[in-house]
Every structure is written in structure tokens, then in C-alpha cells.
């Protein structure tokens, strides 16, 4: 798989998951999440680029 496709996969996955998490949090807390909930969401969010790397690796055949 070309570098462009790997980069695109990683970026699309990281952005999609992170934006989805933010939107879900926004919906369930009406835009005012408690601090602990916000921090947990941010902690999960921080691993979305890693998930992007994993998926890009699977697609390219270079499983980590």
C-alpha cells in the first residue's frame, strides 16, 4: 500500500473516531460534561491515532 493511502487511512480513522467521541459526549451531556467524564473522554480520544495506525497496518498487510 502506498504511503498516501497509509497516511489517509490513519488520518481518517483518527479524526472520525475522535469527532464521533466528542459528538456523543456533547449529545449525552447537552454540551456540559462533568470534568471527570470529559477527562475520560479525552483519555480515550488520545488513543484514536494509534487505532488509525493499527487499521492502516492491517490494510497494508504490515501488521504490527
Amino acid at each position, binding site marked *: 500500500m502506498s*504511503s*498516501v493511502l*497509509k*497516511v489517509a487511512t*490513519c*488520518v481518517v480513522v*483518527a*479524526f472520525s473516531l*475522535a*469527532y464521533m467521541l*466528542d*459528538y456523543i459526549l*456533547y449529545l449525552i451531556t447537552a*454540551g456540559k*460534561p462533568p470534568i471527570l467524564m*470529559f477527562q475520560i473522554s*479525552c*483519555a480515550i480520544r*488520545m*488513543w*484514536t*491515532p*494509534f487505532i*488509525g*495506525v493499527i487499521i*492502516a497496518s492491517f490494510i497494508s498487510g504490515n501488521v504490527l
Partner: protein
Amino acid sequence: MKYIGIALTIPYLIYLIGVSVAKAVDMPIVNPIVMISAVTGSKYIVNPQVTLIITLASTAFAGLTINTLFALGEEIGWRGLLQDELCSLIGFKVTPLVIGILWALWHAPLIIMYGYNYPHHRDAVGVVMFIIICSIWSCILSILKVRSESMIPPAVTHGTLNAIGGLMLYTIIVRDEIWGLPVGILGVVASTITLIIIYIIMLKR
């Protein structure tokens, strides 16, 4: 180990330079412990100076441990796959800037929906400001990754920056966070000076 030491030092260097620049331009500087105590209504057991030292030490500990663990999730993506692949496509000089822009845009919903970092600027101003600061930090982290050939030092710097951010925020008193530390104009100035120092020390050798 040497690079982990350098990585741990960088956020404190940004803090120190930021406070020095603020003092030079006559911005009000306070002990952040006093400010945090006033804002949250919490009390400190020992005097604020000692509490500040203990807090600074605890940010270093958190930066090296739990915060690095979480920052690693981002760094494997940004400075890992993205940096390696983009370098082969567009070269080393442009790559950190592209990653910095992506990195900031990835944070955009937090800024717009929750006022993350910029409670007064839940708009394009906050996002653009964060793009500028992330581009500078991205250059610093990219240099660290290239020189150390490891993901750990950038993750340590990233984690420690997250840990010390609150202290930075409450050290320089500004009405609008767009002017202060760690993600305002003062943060941009301090981070740029730090980038120049890191560039001279690590890439020019």
C-alpha cells in the same frame, strides 16, 4: 535516557521562557498555587512556594508516567506513522508543519464545543491559534523523534506539557487566554524560542 531527560526538560523550559518574557513585558505574574486556590476555593497545607515546588515535581512524575502512556497513543500516530510516511512524500522540513495542522484540527471539536484551551474563543480564532502553537510543538517533537529514533521522548514532552499546562495557565494573569501561556501569544513566543534552542542543540551538532 539522555533524550528522555531532554524531553522532560522542554516543557519546563517553555514555562521558564514564558515567565521571563512576561516579566520583560510587564505582564502580571503570580504563584499559580495561590491562583488555583482562589479559583477552586481549595486550601494548601504548606505555604504556596513549597506547594508550587511539590506540584512541579508531581507534574514531572505524572509527565513521565501516566501522561506519557496516554500521549503515546497520539504520538504513535502523529510522530510515528504520519511523520515517517509524510517525510518520504514531502520531506522533513514541511512534514512537522503538516502534522501540526492536522494535530490542531483533530482538537478542533474540543475547542468549538467545549471551549477547550480557549473558553473565550470557541471559534476560528481559537482553532487558528491552536494550529500555530501545535505547528511549533510539532517541530520540537519531530526533532526529538528523529534524534532519539524513538517514540518515547516525544511522548514524554507531550505528556509533561499536558501535566504542566494548568500551572502555566494560572501563572500569567491575562483577561483573554489568547495572550497567555501555554497556548496563547506568550506560549507561541516561548515555544518558538525553545524550538530555536532545541534546533541549535540537537540538529546543528
